[in-house]
């Protein structure tokens, strides 16, 4: 297996990476772990003219600053998996990364690379949207922040401008009685997801829902924020019946794209099941109840 020829340079800082990308023209691409891009290059589905290797552009830092979890774009999936700081502040990340690929992919793949790739089944994309993350990017025009919900446009397409590179991802860490859940079903552990559902729930002292977010991943061309459909839960105690209604409504309305291994209707049914499980699990965790698992889609 041989990719098409390309040039390769290393950037020792983010500004240098931006300069190199700008000089490389529109076929220049950033490479960090390469776990998404390189398979496409090997199969000749991608043929960048220049690879700018950013793996030495910054540290793989994980910081908790002012109610924000700030991850360097170079933080690897395995770093997330084993970080107590992440587990304590944004457990949905910890839960989601175990679904990614295998131990090798998790050791090379980075959060910045995963988000910038724009692959619609990417677990971290779904989590970023569900947790309201902000993506910090640096480009020829300077630094800007993109809400994760605005980053993903369609298959392998993001709102990053040419010459822009993701440098960090920021996750809000709200206090209070809050719970989250990430649910995924793939035909085989580590494979591309058939359906993902990510939910966060905040409760008041009386166990009534203060806020709820629900995002469905892997069924459309990008993560789909369906929080609006969950609004009936607000002000209520979250129970199976109400959640079931929300989940069915979400499933009925969501646009489901094709998949090699499953028909649209089946995946629509899974949306309903996983959305329900994600909401109930998140609510249980918010209530601080003994962890009740409403069924985890993972085979592993």
């Amino acid at each position, binding site marked *: 297996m041989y990719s098409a020829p390309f040039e390769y340079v290393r950037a020792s800082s983010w500004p240098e990476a931006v300069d190199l990308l700008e000089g490389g023209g529109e076929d220049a691409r950033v490479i960090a772990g390469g776990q998404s891009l390189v398979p496409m290059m090997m199969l000749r589905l991608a043929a960048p003219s220049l690879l700018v290797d950013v793996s030495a552009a910054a540290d793989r830092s994980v910081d908790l600053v002012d109610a924000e979890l700030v991850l360097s774009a170079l933080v690897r999936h395995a770093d997330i998996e084993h970080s107590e700081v992440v587990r304590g502040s944004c457990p949905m990340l910890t839960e989601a990364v175990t679904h990614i690929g295998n131990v090798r*992919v998790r050791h090379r793949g980075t959060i910045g690379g995963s988000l910038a790739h724009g692959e619609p089944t990417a677990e971290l994309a779904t989590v970023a949207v569900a947790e309201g993350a902000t993506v910090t990017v640096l480009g020829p025009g300077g630094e800007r922040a993109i809400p994760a919900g605005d980053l993903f446009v369609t298959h392998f397409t993001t709102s990053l401008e040419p010459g822009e590179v993701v440098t960090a991802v920021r996750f809000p860490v709200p206090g209070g009685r809050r719970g989250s859940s990430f649910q995924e079903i793939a035909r085989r552990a580590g494979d591309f997801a058939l359906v993902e559902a990510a939910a966060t729930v905040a409760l008041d002292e009386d166990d009534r829902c203060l806020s709820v977010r629900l995002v469905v991943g892997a069924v459309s061309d990008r993560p789909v924020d369906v929080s609006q459909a969950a609004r009936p839960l607000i002000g209520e105690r979250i129970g199976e019946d109400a959640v079931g209604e929300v989940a069915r409504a979400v499933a009925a309305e969501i646009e489901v794209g094709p998949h090699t291994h499953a028909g649209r209707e089946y995946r629509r049914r899974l949306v309903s099941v996983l959305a329900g499980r994600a909401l109930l699990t998140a609510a249980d965790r918010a209530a601080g109840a003994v962890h009740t698992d409403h069924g985890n889609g993972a085979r592993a």
Partner: protein
Amino acid sequence: MSKHEIALEVNGRPVSATVDPNMSLLELLRTEAGGLEVKLGCGEGVCGTCTVLLDGEPVNSCLTFAVQVDGRAVTTVRGLAAEGELHPLQEAFLTHAGSQCGFCTPGMLLTAKWYLDRHPRADREELRSALSGNFCRCTGYTKILDAIEAYRDARQEVSVVD
């Protein structure tokens, strides 16, 4: 394509080469570094056959470009033990028939070794999970897990005696 001079360590020995950017680490190992024990199974990063350790961590050598590993250390299955000898984990694979056709074995050994070094008391289910990205089409995995557990137990006994 501009060539790049790279220098790395393969199984503790220095290797330097002049490579095109699109040469994979797998190809570098199989040509310049004489590491024919590194096998290509799928080229997608899925099967685990081409697994090597890069600075001690498992990677797909088929999805890593050689230029990316300049200055780093690579371990292949031949780096597990001294030339002409077998590592106890390799012995365990032999004793427990953890290898049939043998094509997945190098990647399987390296993943198991890496995982047990990090999690010396990993139980069978944790080991099963750690190996989920290393496919075997011959054994059904049962004897592979038998072998890895036997090695783990023998190693723990040794450390208890110490």
